[in-house]
């Protein structure tokens, strides 16, 4: 399979191209088969390539396939090159696996949409860009995927572009991401000029050889991390992701939860040698990650839109992944990336099923008691909620605990405590969501109730499959307490992760206590949610009345969007307006028009010299030439 891994991105690319060019001539059935089939082919190729890794013991990693040179300009160059190693394997499996299920689910979800073909064209294009991103062997080509997924995100957030909010959200996502990309590009330019190449192997070599180290490594790592804060929605560039929920729900599941938003985590893990060479870059990553994890979780506490809760939850969980990478536990960060892909896409798709059932209703205040109407949606939704809350023996527990344990082991006690606090909140807001949606009294509008129906199998079967993975995926990364070899995931990734960057081991007793703390956090959060939304439903309102300021602040998401508007966007527009009318039109054009007027004045004053236009021109012209020649020559 060694020779075929580079083919993985291309089936969806071919499908997307065909759909864009000939989509209008294709039947809906054929569109479905082609779009899903192409992703299936990629998925199978990924499995074969993954299997190939085990058969290639002793071979040098990564596998590299250079298709052809791409850019060449002086010392600057980049190839169409692909590479495959355990990290790529994890990513392509997650992307194509989850991607395939979401393609299938979309067949049901988008069945009645006029833009069916366009939808699948964009979704296929996204798969191509995402796979390119994780398989590229150099950072310039990776950047093509990086911006390519951004484009697809833009197109799919604004899929229903007739809605003003959707088109505005798409634009916002693209521009905010571009801010991150500007930083990323500067980091890339540093690498290109210093290393002379952007191949990952060359970059690792340059760092290990000492060409890049110390402050320079920190600077480059942080510039690249700016890009990650944009793509992976971390403080301060997270503001686009909640708005991105304007897109169709399967898109939120695939792009804005499971895959694209994890690109920043992938990038940091891919460059772990560089990040590890810098002392403080890792700290910044960890602090931003932990801060985002808690900050976003607080905003999720009070949201009433089911998708917005999940959006803030995604931002928060991405924060955990960065926390893991930042403290050197790259394997744990990537592990959480993988488990999160399962349970978060499960949550989004289940939420989609609820929304679908309620004819588009997203406000949880108008739900409640849906358990009995949606018997095939409720169980997987519950599994997802338990998994993300960190209840023991489901996937989220293992991966989150691995991150928190590593943070503690690295002596970052404050970050660990923040992570634990976030974990309590996570369990709380998830079960708040479950209780408000599926339990308690029905608050469904008559209109929605008359159409209420369980979703078709094409949607619920993917939910069941994802639920199974949300339960079992954790067992590939068991905690070290069960033995040195228990963490299969970490051992699998070991060839990619620089050993110096790994966390040191704790005593068995300490680790046991940490695990108990994690489990306790989950149960505490769930219990409080039960208290608030089942036992004493008046409590939330009472608390909001007692702390009106805090409630308002959280409910309005700390007024960050308003602040950005007031401090950045409006001043920029007003300022530019002022400069335009004040400087461009008055000063520059004023000078021009003024000199024209002056010329007119002198022209009139000297009109006794005037004999005719052409002569005037010629005379002035010759005079000027003679004058200048005179100055220089004589």
């Amino acid at each position, binding site marked *: 399979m060694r020779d075929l891994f580079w083919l993985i991105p291309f089936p969806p690319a071919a499908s997307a191209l065909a759909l864009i060019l000939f989509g209008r001539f294709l039947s809906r059935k054929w569109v479905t088969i082609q779009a899903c089939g192409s992703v299936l082919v990629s998925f199978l190729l990924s499995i074969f390539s993954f299997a190939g890794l085990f058969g290639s013991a002793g071979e040098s990693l990564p596998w590299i396939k250079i298709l052809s040179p791409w850019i060449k300009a002086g010392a600057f160059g980049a190839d169409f090159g692909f590479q495959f190693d355990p990290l790529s394997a994890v990513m392509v499996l997650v992307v194509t696996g989850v991607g395939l299920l979401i393609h299938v689910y979309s067949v049901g979800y988008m069945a009645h949409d006029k833009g069916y073909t366009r939808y699948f064209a964009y979704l296929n294009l996204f798969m191509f860009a995402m796979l390119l991103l994780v398989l590229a062997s150099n950072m310039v080509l990776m950047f093509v995927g990086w911006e390519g997924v951004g484009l697809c995100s833009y197109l799919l957030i604004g899929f229903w572009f007739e809605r003003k909010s959707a088109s505005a959200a798409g634009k916002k996502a693209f521009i905010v991401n571009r801010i991150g990309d500007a930083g990323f590009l500067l980091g890339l330019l540093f690498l290109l*000029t210093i290393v002379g190449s952007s191949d990952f192997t060359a970059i690792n070599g340059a760092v290990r050889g000492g060409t890049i180290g110390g402050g320079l490594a920190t600077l480059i790592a942080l510039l690249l991390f700016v890009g990650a804060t944009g793509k992976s929605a971390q403080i301060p560039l997270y503001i686009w992701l909640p708005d991105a929920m304007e897109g169709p729900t399967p898109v939120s599941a695939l792009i804005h939860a499971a895959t694209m938003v994890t690109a920043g985590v992938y990038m940091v893990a891919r460059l772990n040698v560089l990040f590890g060479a810098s002392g403080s870059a890792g700290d910044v990553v960890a602090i931003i990650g932990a801060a985002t994890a808690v900050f976003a979780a607080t905003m999720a506490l009070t949201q009433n839109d089911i998708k917005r809760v999940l959006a803030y939850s995604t931002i928060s969980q991405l924060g955990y992944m960065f926390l893991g990478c930042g403290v050197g536990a790259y394997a744990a960060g990537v592990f959480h990336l993988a488990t999160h892909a399962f349970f978060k896409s499960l949550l989004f798709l289940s939420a989609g099923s609820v929304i679908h059932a309620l004819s588009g209703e997203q406000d949880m205040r108008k739900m409640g008691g849906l358990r009995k109407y949606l018997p095939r949606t409720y169980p997987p939704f519950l599994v997802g909620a338990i998994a993300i809350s960190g209840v023991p023996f489901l996937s989220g527990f293992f991966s989150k605990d691995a991150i928190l344990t590593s943070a503690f082991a690295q002596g970052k006690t404050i970050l660990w405590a923040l992570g634990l606090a976030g974990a309590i909140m996570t369990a709380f807001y998830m079960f708040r969501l479950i209780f408000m949606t599926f339990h308690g009294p029905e608050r469904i509008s008559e209109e929605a109730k008359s159409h209420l129906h369980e979703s078709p199998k094409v949607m619920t079967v993917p939910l069941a499959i994802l639920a199974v993975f949300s339960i079992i995926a954790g067992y590939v990364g068991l905690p070290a307490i069960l033995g040195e070899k228990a963490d299969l995931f970490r051992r699998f990734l070991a060839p990619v992760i620089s050993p110096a960057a790994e966390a040191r081991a704790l005593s068995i007793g300490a680790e046991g206590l940490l695990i108990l703390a994690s489990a306790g956090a989950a149960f505490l959060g769930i219990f409080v949610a039960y208290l608030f939304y089942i036992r004493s439903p008046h409590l939330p309102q009472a608390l909001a009345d007692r702390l009106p300021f805090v409630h308002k602040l959280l409910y309005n998401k700390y007024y960050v969007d308003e602040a950005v508007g007031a401090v950045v966007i409006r001043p920029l527009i007003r300022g530019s307006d002022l400069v335009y009318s004040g400087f*461009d039109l008055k000063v520059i054009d004023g000078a021009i028009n003024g000199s024209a007027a002056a010329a007119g004045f002198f022209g009139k004053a000297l009109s006794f010299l005037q004999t005719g236009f052409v002569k005037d021109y010629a005379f002035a012209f010759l005079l000027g030439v003679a004058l200048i020649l005179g100055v220089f020559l004589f």
Partner: protein
Amino acid sequence: MSMPLLSLITFLPLAAAVLLIFFPKDRKRLLYGFALGVTVAVFAASLILYFGFDSAAAGPQFVERTAWLGFGIQYHVGVDGISLFLVLLTTFLLPLVLLSSWSYIRERIKEYLIFMLLLETGILGVFLSLNLFLFYVFWEAALIPMYFLIGIWGGKRRVYATMKFVLFTMAGSLLMLAAIFTLSSLFFKATGTYSLNVFDQARMVLNPRLQTWLFLAFGLAFAIKVPMFPFHTWLPDAHVEAPTGASILLAAVLLKMGSYGFLRFAIPLFPDAVERFLPVLSVLCLIGIIYGGLMALIQKDIKSLVAYSSVSHMGLVMLAVFSLNVEGTLGAIYQMLNHGLSTGALFLAVGILYERAHTRLIRDFGGVSKQMPVFSAFFLIAVLSSAGLPGLNGFIGEITCLYGVFAANKVYAALAVTTLILGAAYLLWMFQRVMQGPVTNEKILSFPDMSWREIACFAPIVVLMFWMGIAPRAFTGKMDASVTAYVHRIKGRERVFVQKAVPSPVSFRLDAEERLPR
């Protein structure tokens, strides 16, 4: 070369323009058919240049040289890696521009076509001339048809716009002519022979004071044409008033005459002066990038938005030119081509909208995508190309430019990357307001989608955008040798050979085996 290919390409449009005079003026199909046929033939001929071009050779190829007026004034044309693709861009766009004018130009069709053909001759001459005086003649010749194109077929404020356009450009070019005469006489004083050959001239080393003045004379003419901040205010006016076809050529090709002028003349002839002014020039470019972007953000008219985006994009091109290294120079040339395609396509798109709505104000539109899905796709690709999205041409140019700038000065590069953000902001915001959202204006509901003719104009540009984004080496490979030699020349100028012992404003630099021109 046995066949005078370059002269053929240059003067075929002129000959066709003369012939057109004798055509009946109301036979629209015949007139268009003839003009289109000629421009397509010119494009086909210019493809011979592409395929016959020797990538390994740094110097000019397909050279033709004959005596003309004496005093060093020769008819001397040739094409090298710097000018090759600018020539191709011109010949490629001309048929598309004519095709796009089919329904826009309703009166005086014959004259319109004549001026378009004259314009092509003028532009091609500018890119092909290797003699300073010949260059000047074409430079001015290209101005005249554009003057009429805006002045006759322009919008309401066309008189103001044309006056501004002419005053700005004339102001620059007259000083340049004086400088050319000065160079000619300096050369004669130093060598006893006349030569206005650009390569001979580039070997003359002038004292710093002279270089400064002459550079300013040339530089002003070019800076106005680019246009560099603060000489840019003629551009939005000219664009807003110009008919679609003229706008496309103005943005796509005419502006490149300015940046090309720096590469071919101002920098090789006066390298010390350039070095001296480098900080000032670079800062002006940076201001152009950011200022142009911010101004584009707030424009109400789509055309002036695109015009200000040109100021911003050309700012990056010039910043890369002033990086004076191989990557920056290659990137600048590449980005000149990209800007030609993307801005040309944007103006084409605005023209398509204007022909339906008879307005270009952003606020008059909204939700057009729903009514014109095919157009929406083309327009979006043009927008993304202009915003430098990877996979399309703009990205290759932008990152190569930024690489060159970064290698020359990291602070400049850090400021220049704002173009990524601003570009996305003004373009996507405009796209959102015009194409997306609910349909705000009932007239929009009656817009037909693109016609086959319009698709035929747009599609070749889009194909090229992808091609240049995916396979840039098909283009950079031909530029490489000339650009490397160019950078080597300006960087290697410390090898100065003093020709005369007496104090003279002039000395010569020579390679060991080279001789003075005779």
